[in-house]
């Protein structure tokens, strides 16, 4: 199989699962619990993306843990996304220099 063919297949298996629900689930009537399930997916998927991935995004994980705490506190304080981003990255940078 040529590289171009592989890349085209990669594009298809990436796009088709994304597209099908978007097109066909839109106006379908679903049971209330299923609606709630779909509505809560954003929170659950962000949770799964953050942990444990964030912990091992930098080495040592202790530096990442510090960044997680700082970003979470900034988020709790209701700071803007940019502020959360900047303070989290800054915390990790400082911890990496120290550790």
């Amino acid at each position: 199989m040529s590289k171009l063919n592989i890349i085209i297949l990669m594009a298809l298996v990436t796009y088709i699962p994304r597209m099908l629900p978007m097109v066909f689930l839109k106006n379908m009537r679903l049971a209330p619990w299923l609606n709630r399930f779909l509505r809560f997916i954003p929170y659950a998927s962000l949770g799964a993306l953050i942990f444990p991935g964030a912990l091992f995004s930098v080495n040592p994980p202790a530096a990442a843990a510090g960044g997680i705490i700082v970003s979470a506190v900034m988020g709790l304080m209701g700071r803007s996304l940019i502020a959360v981003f900047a303070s989290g990255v800054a915390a990790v940078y400082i911890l990496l220099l120290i550790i």
Partner: protein
Amino acid sequence: MSLIVFAGAAQFVGAGMFGMGVGGWEIVLTTFVLNFRHFLMTSSLSRRLPDNTTKSQSALAAFGVTDETFAVASMSRDEKLAPSYLYGLNFTAYTAWAAGTVAGVMAGSILGDTLKQSLTFGLYALFIGLLVPEMKRAKPAVTAALCSMAVSGALYFQPFFKMGSGWMIVSATVVGSFIAAVLHGDENE
């Protein structure tokens, strides 16, 4: 590859596997598993499209759904998400991705290793910045996020079998969201 496979992780993994000389079908299968989580994400997003959205508008909007654009769109306070809003968001992310690739190649040699490492954490800082305020606002968000973290943590650290990160995210998302849907049944949000 950047132009038609719009998915960060899959691109890196795919490029790596090309380098190692792994067979074509294996690369395709890995890509599928890695990106299957977006099936759940667009299932969720589709419910928030306005009723008059056409099939082709939905199909076009679906191309740009990634972890990042999904996170931003789904955390939007508006109940309905206009296709034009999604196009704008996805297009911004798409051009930024392409420009970022070029800038990354040029900056890669200038930035120190420590700074590069800390910027890797930036994506997670953004995810945290999107999730935490929602957890403050809505109880189901707390349940769903904590349960899915528990599941993905358990799957990651358990010693019994190996699991790809794609399936880990998919199963943790399903379990977390399901538990929240069962526990928060009678609440109207």
